[in-house]
């Protein structure tokens, strides 16, 4: 069994209304030295696979097909480890 963490983020240049609102809120709370906030998704997946390569392959395919919207988002597998 493998456990993976993926990051899914808005591509550069794509408006991130959530990030903006949070940045302004932080500034209003007194965190004046915040320069930028971008908000993305953290996806944690556990999957049964025979080996790392197969797991990687599958994860990529999940991102392409469902998890990330290629129009506005990019994805990255930030960690992948065997468990149990």
């Amino acid at each position, binding site marked *: 069994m493998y456990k993976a963490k993926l990051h899914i983020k808005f591509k550069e*240049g794509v*408006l*991130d*209304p959530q990030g903006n*609102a949070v940045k*302004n809120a932080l500034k209003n709370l007194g965190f004046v030295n915040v320069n930028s906030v971008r908000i993305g998704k953290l996806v944690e997946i556990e999957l049964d696979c025979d080996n790392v390569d197969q797991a990687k392959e599958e994860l990529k395919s999940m991102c392409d097909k469902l998890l990330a*919207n*290629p*129009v*506005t988002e990019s994805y990255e597998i930030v960690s992948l480890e065997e468990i149990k």
Partner: protein
Amino acid sequence: MLKYRELGLNDEEYKKICQDLGREPNDVELGMYSVTWSEHCSYKHSKPLLKLFPTSGKHVVQGPGENAGAVDIGDGLVVVFKMESHNHPSAVEPFQGAATGVGGIVRDVLAMGARPIALLDSLRFGDIRKPNVKYLFNGVVGGISFYGNCIGVPTVAGEIYFNSCYDDNPLVNVMCVGIARREELKFSRTGKTGARVLLVGALTGRDGIHGASFASQELDEESHSKRPSVQVGDPFMEKLLIEACLEACKVDGVLAVQDLGAAGLTSACSEVAAKSNKGIVIDLSKVPRREANMSTYEVVLSESQERMLLIVEEKALQKVKEIFEKWDLVFSEIGYLTDDGFFTVYEGSELVARVPVKSLTEGVPIVYIGPKERRLNVEEPNPPEPLNVQDIFIKLLSSENIASKRFVFEQYDHRVGINTVVLPGGDAAVLRIKGTNKGIAVSVDCNSLYCYVDPYEGGKIAVAEAARNVVVTGAKPLGITDCLNFANPDDPEVYWELKRCIEGMAEAAKVLEIPIVSGNVSLYNESLKNRIYPTPTVGIVGLIEDISKRCSADFKSENDLVVLLGF
């Protein structure tokens, strides 16, 4: 390839530009022309045909030509409405495409100084059993729900049809209805020389550059690589804009309001200047930006959402700025109106474009296509004697085109504003007008199969169906808005469909005495595989003088008499 061709302009158009300018355009100017002269902005195929529509009547306060149409409902009030398509963006990115479609039409109504009080959506999808169609369907419905719910404008009615001809080319038509006091309406034609141009709302980014040209092409394999032109909507920003702009509209000296839609600053600035018979000067270095190192070209053509222009006399500046500050909106004074009839663009002290306003807005050579009748070999249907009516009845009811659309409209907040008196699920939604005894009924309709079989009759039927839907609530139809969704009009058969549909709609509107006060045209709705049926969506607004006399579609009590009227 020649640069102008790459931008979608043809030889004749390029010649006309050079003639209007008395020289060759620079790159920025060429970009500005290419979007304002795209079908989406210029109506170069449909303009002469649209003249067939009856547009005046005793209730009409504003017909086509402004940001939205308006009809008088008495008590000093007007109802403002318009429908618009966001088909191409929704085909590529259904959620954001539909969401920004809602945002755009709401800003059109807002630009008239009216408070948006209702949304309607007319949707067409392909065969719902196909995974891609399901994806488009969920995305579009999700996007409308996301955006409309957040800005607090109820989505009170709509329609959804499924047919394979829309497999790659879904239709997303959204209508917005607003209300205003008659004397508080705003028009783009009332700009004065010297008035300042304020830009307010979202920062300008590299969104949707050449979106208008994108909407004026057929979808092909490449469309998906053009995806970066799709924008992300920020309904929260839109909500702030609604409140701030309506407050600003009450300030004496706010002359005009204009939304930034397709072609961004280029289109908004030239529209206001042209309608007011003025010139306009803007300085792009004053445009607040989201990204560093944007080029002149990008700033002047960006289609970033949630932005508005206000044309404001000097005496009103202070008050207007205070209102924007109150709502924490970013704004900037980017220019002023002039007498010279030119659209002049600076980047700091550098002159980057200078074109005659009217050349941009009205100079495009009109395209005349010789219509060619499309003959259909339809046989008179000859259904077999039904064996089991019960079975057929159930089959019909479970068809996705007939089944209840509750699943969809319950994802829309259709009650916010506490005006929705007849909820979705009937023939038309009815909204009360607070402070009066009146109500309005609204509906959108079109049967595109009829339009495919016979565009002329289909056009008539669309208008008649819409009218019936509001009449049965007890309302008198006051005005129509429409959205003409067709395939590639350069094909003489498609042009013929367009022409015949318009003729049919015009005929019905004349006979029923319901003027058409606003509308929108969306062409090139076809892919390599599919061509959509002609789909002239009709949106309608009717007035109920006494809201207590409204009718709804449900049976009220047992033993009531059921009468079938008509033939």
